[in-house]
Structures are given as C-alpha cells and as structure tokens.
C-alpha cells in the first residue's frame, strides 16, 4: 500500500513561529470546534450494526445532541462514514466509491467487529476482513453489535481526535499531503485491489512455478517444522458421509405407487418419507402433484442443493412442497445429478417460487437448471471462481473441515488469519480459469455491468418517440433497507421491469454453518434476520430438537412463545415505521416504533444478555430463567402499553389521506399468484390466503392459545400495512395468555451440553416468522457438525415476486413495494 493515511493519528506539530500567529490561533479553534460538532454521518448501513446505528438516531440516544443530526443520503454532503456491519466483497467497490466521493475533511468510523476485522464472519469467502485494509479508519468501535451508547462513545472519541487536529497540520490544506482517491476494487475471480496487482502477479507466478515443478516429482518434502507440529495435534479426519435408514414409509410408498402408475414405472422411488424423482421426469411429476385435485401441492416452499461428495450421483436437489388448501406436512422431492456436469430441469414453469432458489443453487453448487429463464449468479458476481458451497471448495482463510480448530488449544499461539495469507487479506486467486486458460492479473476484463438506454420506441397515436432507460437503485440507497439493489427499466415514470440484485450482504452463513458444530450455529442464526433474533433461534432449535427427539419443559415452551411474540410485535411496529418512512412521512412513526422496541429490547437484554443478538434458546430449553419482576413488566407491556400504542398507531396512520392514496389499489397480488411465487407471512394473508404455520402445522404450544389469523382480501399495499398492525394485536393476545398461564419449573430439558451429537438423518422444520415462513433444512451425518445446514429465508423467497409487483407502477412506488415486503438483508443474502 502506498497511499498515505490522510489522518495521521499524531497531529503534526505547529512550527514555533506560526504558534505566535495571532490570526490563525483563534481561527483554528473556531474551525476545529465547528468540525467537531457538525459531523454529518452518511445514511448508509450494511448489516446488523446499522439497526443499532438507527437506534442511535432515535429518542433514547439522540445523536442530534452531538451535532451529528443529519444523516445525509449523499456522500457529497457527509463527512463521517460509519461503516456499520459486515463488509462483503461484493459491496466493497461501492463503499470505496462512496468514500472517494466524500469531500475532505472526511472521517471513517468502523462500527462493530465485522467492519473492524471481519468479525464472526471473518472466515467467510465473501467477507472483507476489515474495512481498514482499504480505507483509513479513524475510530474502531468493537462489539457484536456495540450497544448504541458505545457508538456514541466512539463518536466522542472521534470528536476528541478532531480536537487534536490543527488547521495548520491537516492534510487537506496541504499540497504535499493531499489525499488521493482510493482505487476502487474490481470484481475478478475474487475481489481485487488494484494496488495489489503486482503482488498477485508475483504470487501466481510462484504458484505456477511450484505447480510445474511438482508435476514431474511426486512429492517434495515441504517445510519440515510443519510436519513436526502436525504430529503433536490430533489428526484431522475428513467428515463422514451421512447415511441413514431409507426404508420407505407407507405414505411415501403409496404416493410413489400412484405417481408411478400415472406417469410411468420408475419415475419416482420412495426413500423414507421422501420421493426420489428421476431427473428426466421431474416436470411431469411436479405437474401431476400440483394439478391433481386431491393432491393440490401448490406451494413450493424450499429448494436446496446438497453435496454428497463421494456418492455416484454427487448432487441432490431437495424440494419441499406444501398444499395451502389443506395445511399439514410437505411432500419432499429429490432429484439427483452427477458431479461432472450436474443438470436438472428447472421447475420455474411449475412453481415460480423456484426462481431465485434455483439461481442460488447454481451460484453456490454449480448445478445447472435447464430451461431456467434467467440462470445467473445471484449472491456472488459473474466470474467468481468456483461454487463455494461444494464441500471440496475451500476459502482463503480455510483451516479445517470442522470446528473446533486444532490450532486453538492446547498450543494456541495466536496467529491472525490474515498473516497466513500471501495477500494479507481474505482473498485467493486461481491460476487458471476452469477451461484451463491461465489467468493474468494484469490483462483481463473486470466483470462489470453496464447500464444504459435500452431502446427507442414510438408512442402510439402521437408520433412521439420515447426511450426506455435503466435506473439503478442501491445498493447503498437509504430506502432499500440495507444493501439491496434493484435495476429498474423505466418508460417515463412507469416501471417496465424491476430486477433485484442481491448478495451485497452474503456473508456465507451456510458455509460457516456446516463447519460449526450444532450449538455454534445458534448465535449465528441471530444474525440472519437481525430484527428477530428470537424467532430465528426458535426455528433452529425446533429443527435440531426434531432430529434429536428432545423434550422441552413447559416453562421453557412458554418463554419461547413469549419471546417470539414480543419479537413479532416490535417487528411489525418497526415495519410500520420504516414503511411510512418510505412514503416520505419522515420520522415520526419510526421514532414511536423504536421507543417500544427499546422497551422490549430491555426485556430481551435482561433475559438473554444482549439486545439484538439474543441466542436465548438452547436445544431442549432456554438459556436463562426470567424473574417475577421481569414477567410483571412484560405483563404491563402486553396488557396496557402495547395495546395502547397499537391504538395510537392506527389513529396516527390508518386514515391518513396521503398513506391511503399512495397505497390503496397499488401493486395488487392475487391469491393464486401469491401462492405460486412462494410468498408467505403477512403478505400472503393480505392477499386473502389463510395460511399461517402456527395454525396449519402447529409447532411448540401454539395450539393452546386462542388467537385469530387476520385476513384481508385486497392484496394491495394498504392491506399489507394494515395486516401487520392486526397481527401485532393478535400477538399481544397470545402474549397475554402465555404470561397468565406460564408455569414454574425447569427451563432446560435433558442435559445441557456444549457439544451435541445429532442422529444421522435429515429434517425440515419451519415456523411462522414475522416475515413469513422461516425453515431450516438440516442433514446430519451423526457427528457433532451438520453435513448440510440450509436456511429457507422468508424475505429471500418473498422477493421472487418483486418484479411482478412493481410492473406498471411508478418509480416512487417501487420503494414502498419493497418496504411492504419487509426484507432484512441479513436473511435475504445470508
């Protein structure tokens, strides 16, 4: 790196003769004072930490008191870049570009462990291990996430630093020290820092030399001390291929017989409770399941790939299909493909909800879906080297196939992962392209998307010509709920096509999850939908308990429901806040919602120890008991405060003329389309489909409570808002019952263990998450680590219909339509 840091931590000393300058000294003091108390942060958040950053703006913490009132949506008006959250490689070029666009004086604050050094996601293949490798950082705020007051403390630290900077020493007034723009990283086979190209070239040359040398000789004894050190550690065994009893269950057998009779012998064969479909006949089987009247499997919930490394047919694609008219369990289909050139017919034509999920499988597993309308990478970028979820693909910071790592104990000499990498950062470059061509870091085309005018057409009957243009919104747009990007094709103000571009927060949750042991995934699930940690924990605990057959004691069940419903209330209230923000109603509902959120988070913090990242559930119970005082406060919230606040929300918004005229009749989704696109949760019920997993496939103790499933029929934006308020009311109702009935007793069933072994097998468990159906598909090989860990994220699948919902509406509406999906990027991109 050659670029000098523009903000040296030690202020340069003022020359003696200048110190006596009468004019400069007071000017200096005034200017410094001005800079200190007018730090305008950029409205730009990346992940979980951004939610805490937003909380800092709200009433309880009130950043305005520090003169940092105005969150500027444009980098040109901002002078503080708060990098809040995980910096992914896909997002990195945008962040660097934003920084370059900021005018001096500019400051960078790295908020949270991820922005500082990669945090818990450091090992991930799409995660940058520290924004300071690219931008000069002034203040680091550690924590995961730092509580809002910690950010304020960081801000004060920054002000102290500014106080020490004299006008005479600051680099932006000096010709010789002027800061040059940081070169924007490029999308290559991995992210490329243009400043590193010589190092990359040298390293690749070295690797090629080694490769050529090694080919003739079989083995050259490399590094003697390494082998010696290895002897003292336990041997690293490759993970065991999962196998379990596949005797078909009667139901699966009966259905298989019926399909075989109808479509032809050998189309499906039952394995336990699943049907293995002959890949060639996947489409007729799917059509039969969907269109036969008494089957009517109309809702494809989950599609995922599994890599069974050593099997003949290495890859498997698993489909979980439900019938919305009946409720109950799924029919599970499996299609298999070989490892050489895996191909499976696409099911988008039967169930459109397969669209994004199949693209994800293509991206991460490299399984090609024939006849898919738009088979592009979805989470990574075109040109990324390899398909990272394959079990034989290792990332740059790879250590061992499973955790815990040997290097941590008993001879755990600390070593930064960065220092093990030749580039000192989380990158790896292939010497060759897959087709065998050598990759030259100096001479290649970076993968870039170019957006431009699409075409020119005549407007009928007028003789005028009009141009369609493409407009790019995001990924750092303040109204895209984080790092989401949409590419809109516009005809005037009207949206002709809208395509979401995802992956800017893809932090490799599933890859890391397969290396973790079962319990380690619990805190990681907090960071999926970071507004609803309790809900995420709940789904995961249910899935693992289903495989282990663990009993959960009564009190723990009640605590789980209480936590999940509290979470639902504040999710829906904050939704209303964000949503009206998107309509341009500025801040009021958002501030009101966040006040209630703070009160609920106080309860969470006391029960679990953390405001946002609760990790409160354990397999077979919950982590800590709550006190009687805690329950009293929760009761006061549920009986008095929350109903009152929900009334207030309705009075504030329901009849507001602007809200009504902007949302009524806009972006209508029919019930059939909603089911076909796999929309779940409040959005589905706003379209008039009475499908709530707490009712149709009850889990935990939801069958004991008396509550309604609110249903609205218009399927427009207004209904999508109203249904959330109605659902929050029902959640309060459940809360009241649960808080009344909660029994005493133990909170943990079985023995609490730090390492769990889960019997070999597979399972899919789903819950009604505030955003829709949250499912976990797990495959175990009987050891302490999952073989496959898949999260079926509701907001990811709900986005499938985004293009359809936007078509024909105005540009300004797209923002509201997106808001109504209620996405959280941590969950969309995982």
């Amino acid at each position, binding site marked *: 790196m050659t670029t000098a840091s523009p903000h040296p931590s030690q202020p340069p000393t003022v020359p003696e003769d200048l110190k006596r300058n009468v004019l400069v000294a007071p000017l200096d003091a005034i200017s410094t004072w001005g800079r200190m108390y007018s730090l305008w942060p950029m409205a730009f958040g990346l992940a979980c930490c951004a939610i805490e950053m937003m909380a800092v703006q709200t*009433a*309880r913490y*009130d950043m305005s*008191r520090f003169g940092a009132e105005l969150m500027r949506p444009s980098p040109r008006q901002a002078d503080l870049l708060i990098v809040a959250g995980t910096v992914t490689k896909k997002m990195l070029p945008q962040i660097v570009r934003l920084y370059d666009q900021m005018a001096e004086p500019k400051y960078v604050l790295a908020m949270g*462990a991820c922005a*500082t*050094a*990669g*945090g818990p996601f450091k*090992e991930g293949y799409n995660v940058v291990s520290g924004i300071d490798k690219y931008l000069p950082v*002034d*203040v*680091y*705020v*550690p*924590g*995961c996430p730092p*509580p809002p*007051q910690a950010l*304020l*403390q960081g801000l004060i*630290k920054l002000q102290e630093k500014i106080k020490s900077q004299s006008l005479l020493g600051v680099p932006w007034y000096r010709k010789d020290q002027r800061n040059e723009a940081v070169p924007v990283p490029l999308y290559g086979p991995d992210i490329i820092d243009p400043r590193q190209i010589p190092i990359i070239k040298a390293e690749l040359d070295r690797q090629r030399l080694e490769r050529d040398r090694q080919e003739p000789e079989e083995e050259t004894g490399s590094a003697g001390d390494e082998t010696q050190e290895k002897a003292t550690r336990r041997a690293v065994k490759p993970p065991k291929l999962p196998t379990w009893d596949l005797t078909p269950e009667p139901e699966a057998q009966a259905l298989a017989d019926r399909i075989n009779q109808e479509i032809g012998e050998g189309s499906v064969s039952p394995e336990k409770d699943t049907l293995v479909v002959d890949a060639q006949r996947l489409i007729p089987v799917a059509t039969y399941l969907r269109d036969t009247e008494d089957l009517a499997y109309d809702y494809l919930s989950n599609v995922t790939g599994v890599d069974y490394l050593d099997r003949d047919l290495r890859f498997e694609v698993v489909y979980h299909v439900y019938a919305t008219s009946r409720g109950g369990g799924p029919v599970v289909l499996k299609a298999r493909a070989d490892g050489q050139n895996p191909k499976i017919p696409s099911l988008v034509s039967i169930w459109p909800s397969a669209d994004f999920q199949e693209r994800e499988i293509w991206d991460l597993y490299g399984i090609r879906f024939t006849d898919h309308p738009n088979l592009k990478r979805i989470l990574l970028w075109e040109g990324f080297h390899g398909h990272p979820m394959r079990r034989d693909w290792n990332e740059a910071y790879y250590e061992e196939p499973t*955790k*815990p*790592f040997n*290097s*941590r*104990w*008993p001879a755990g*000499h*600390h070593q930064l992962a960065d220092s093990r990498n030749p580039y000192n950062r989380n990158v790896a470059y292939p010497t060759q392209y897959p087709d065998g061509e050598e990759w030259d870091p100096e001479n290649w085309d970076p993968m870039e998307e170019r957006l431009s005018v699409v075409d020119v057409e005549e407007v009928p009957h007028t003789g005028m010509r009009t141009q369609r243009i493409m407009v790019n919104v995001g990924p750092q747009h303040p109204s895209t709920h984080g790092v989401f990007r949409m590419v809109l094709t516009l005809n005037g103000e009207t949206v002709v096509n809208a395509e979401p571009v995802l992956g800017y927060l893809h932090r490799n949750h599933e890859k890391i999850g397969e290396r*973790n042991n079962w*319990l380690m*995934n619990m*805190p*990681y699930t907090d960071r999926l939908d970071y507004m609803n940690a309790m809900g995420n924990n709940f789904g995961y605990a249910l899935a693992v308990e289903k495989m282990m057959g663990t009993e959960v004691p009564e009190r723990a069940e009640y605590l789980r429901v209480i936590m999940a419903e509290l979470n639902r209330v504040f999710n829906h209230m904050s939704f209303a806040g964000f949503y009206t923000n998107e309509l341009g109603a500025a801040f*009021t509902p958002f501030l*009101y919602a966040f006040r209630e959120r*703070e009160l609920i988070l106080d309860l969470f*913090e*006391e*029960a679990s*120890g*953390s405001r946002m*990242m609760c*990790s409160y559930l354990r397999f077979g119970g919950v982590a800590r008991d709550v006190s009687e005082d805690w329950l009293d*406060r929760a009761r*006061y919230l549920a009986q008095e*405060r929350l109903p009152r606040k929900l009334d*207030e929300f309705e*009075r*504030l*918004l329901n*009849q*507001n*003329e*602007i809200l*009504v005229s902007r949302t009524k009749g806009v972006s209508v989704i029919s019930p059939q389309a909603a089911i076909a696109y796999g929309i779940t949760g409040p959005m589905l019920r706003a379209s008039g489909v009475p499908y709530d997993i707490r009712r149709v496939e009850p889990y935990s103790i939801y069958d004991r409570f008396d509550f309604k499933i609110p249903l609205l029929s218009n399927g427009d934006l207004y209904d999508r808002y109203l249904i959330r308020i109605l659902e929050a009311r029902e959640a309060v109702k459940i809360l009241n019952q649960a808080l009344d009935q909660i029994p005493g007793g133990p909170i943990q069933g079985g023995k609490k263990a*730090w*390492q769990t072994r889960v019997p070999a097998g597979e399972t899919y468990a789903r819950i009604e998450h505030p955003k829709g159906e949250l499912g976990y598909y797990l495959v175990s090989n009987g050891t302490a680590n999952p073989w496959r860990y898949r999260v079926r994220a509701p907001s990811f699948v709900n986005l499938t219909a985004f293009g359809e919902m936007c078509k024909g509406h105005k540009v300004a509406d797209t923002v509201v339509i997106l808001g109504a999906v209620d996405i959280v990027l941590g969950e969309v991109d995982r």
Partner: protein
Amino acid sequence: MLGLGIAKGLSVTLKHFVETYIEDLRYFPRRYSEEAMEFRQSVKGRGLFTVQYPEQELPVPESFRYIPFLVYDEDGESGEKKIRCTACGICTKVCPPQCIWIVRAKDEKGKPVSQPAEFYIDIDICMNCGFCAEFCPFDSIVMDHNWKMADYERLESHIFDLHTLLKPASYYQQIRPVQYAERQAGKKKERKGKEV
C-alpha cells in the same frame, strides 16, 4: 372529510408533545435526577425518553454480555493472583467464531500443567455470545460489562492477552452479584459432596 385522517394523526403527535412536559413538571426541578430517569426509562414512562449520555448512562442488566475476561482470586495474605483457568480448553472448543487461543503451561519436564501459559481473545472476531462463560466448568471466564472500548487502533490493542484479560473476582462479584453467589454456592456444595 379530506384532511380528517391527517388531523387525527397530528393529534397523536400533539399528545406526545404534551406528555413530554407532564413528567418534567412532575419531577420539577430535578428532571435529570436518578429517580426521574429510572421512571422515564421504564415501561411506565410516557414523557421524554432521552438518556443524556455521557452525563447519564443507561445501566446494563446483570446478564449483559460483552467481551469476556478471566477471573483471578486474590490470596488474602500474600495478595498473589490465583488464576482460576485450568486451560482445559472447553471455551476454545465451544467458541462459535473460534476467537480464543490458549497455550497450556508445561512444567520443567514438559508435562502439561493445568494453567494457561498464554491466553488470547481476538475481540474483533468475538461475537459476544457468552458460550465460553456459560460452559466454563470452573467459572473462570466471565462476560464483562464494560462496553466503552472505542479506540483509534486495532491490530495491537484488540488482541487481548492474558495480562489484559485478567480481572479480580471482586470485580466479577460487583458486576454479576447474583451469578457470582449462585456459582460460589454451587462450588461449595460440590466440595462438600467430594469430602463426604
């Protein structure tokens, strides 16, 4: 009637505006007193909600977890630090992002001793989940309450070594009185059980 909905909404904001001052009057003239703050931050508060950080500070509950630290007991007479950690390695094995490194000490003959020779926590990887403290069989690693850690530098100061991590048991007792008492009682019981 057009505008009625907006007027209704504005009545809500007006109510909030008035409520802010009602509590102010109630605690007049000590509106920033501790008592006033406690009420305002509780579920019953309706008025002004702002905590005047850094003059005031929102208290953290006992269970609050931030970066972990290691507990040492002080020998009453000599004041010698007795590290509770036995380098058993459970915290390194349960840590989800694997941010703990332990070097187990060895005696002169090279046999392992139940003491850590080196102990590192990379707080830039730590996810504050508290598993290490939860599963430590010796109650020797505990989640801290100190969140005021913003800093200008990370490569040296954010890798906590044994020296930085050690804190006295009295500090532990001060931040987590209930947990301390519970675990202490549990230990005594265990010792008694062994003696019998």
